[in-house]
């Protein structure tokens, strides 16, 4: 005759503890995820501001585009700052920096920082083509 045994109280208590540990860890995971979505918002705002900076910079034309030190955006974006870095590059290798007199190509890098941490970088190329 097979012995049909019910759960003991101890077994039930143990399973309850295990379940509560699972719930607790899932709750912690959700908290972490919500910090992640805050970062997404910061990156989205910074990308918009970086595009704005790039548009304003490209307007200046080849001769007028130069590197700049970090500048804060006006309120309400005052926790963000922007920085423009310009390098003269070899058209055959856009990562190779060359002497300004040897090229007609400038690589423009716009970086937007949030509380001094770089969160968005846009790169563009400007040439001195005059027709």
């Amino acid at each position, binding site marked *: *005759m097979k*012995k*049909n*045994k*019910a759960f003991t*109280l101890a077994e*039930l*208590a143990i399973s*309850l*503890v295990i*379940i*509560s540990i699972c*719930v*607790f860890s*899932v*709750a*912690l995971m*959700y*908290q972490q*995820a*919500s910090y992640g*979505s*805050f970062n*997404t*918002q910061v990156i*989205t*705002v910074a*990308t*918009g*501001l970086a*595009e*704005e900076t790039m*548009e*304003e910079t*490209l*307007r200046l034309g080849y001769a007028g585009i130069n590197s700049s030190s970090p500048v804060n955006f006006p309120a*309400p*974006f005052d926790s963000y700052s922007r920085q423009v870095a310009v390098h003269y590059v070899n058209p055959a290798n856009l990562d190779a920096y060359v002497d300004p007199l040897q090229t007609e190509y400038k690589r423009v890098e716009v970086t937007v920082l949030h509380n001094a941490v770089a969160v968005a970088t846009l790169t563009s190329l400007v040439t001195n083509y005059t027709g």
Partner: protein
Amino acid sequence: MGRKGFTLIELITVIVIIGIIIGMTAPFITTMLDAWVFNRTERDIVFSGRMSMNRMVREIRQIRNASSITTFTPTEFSFLKIDNTSITFGQSGNRLLFNSDELTNKLQNPGGLNFTYLDENASITGLLNNIRMVRIRLILESGDSSLDLESLARFRNPG
């Protein structure tokens, strides 16, 4: 034969233990639900904000020149694109309108959309013929979340 179920005492004890565990984990579960709602609204406004801003910047870049502009107020902007398509961006209640289509319905109402018109020196101008760039400000809100975005579109086809 020993086929034994729970006694009443055991059942009551288990129910009490469950009650205690729920009491202890309730704060975490509440936090989890709050985080879930926050995540969802945050994702929604970030998605609509990014999509709306990209769409406006892309359309505005296709203006031929300042004389293609038909309306330029802080809350409405109308113009002809390079292919002579007529485009109007404006706010109606909490909706951001692209002609008669809705880009988002999460605009702050009022004041969720603001255009600033800039000349070639990036200074604010009120003269239609001097407009070369448009600065766009979007403020979206949903639940407890809000998103404040700014970008700029420069006309790519001057002259």
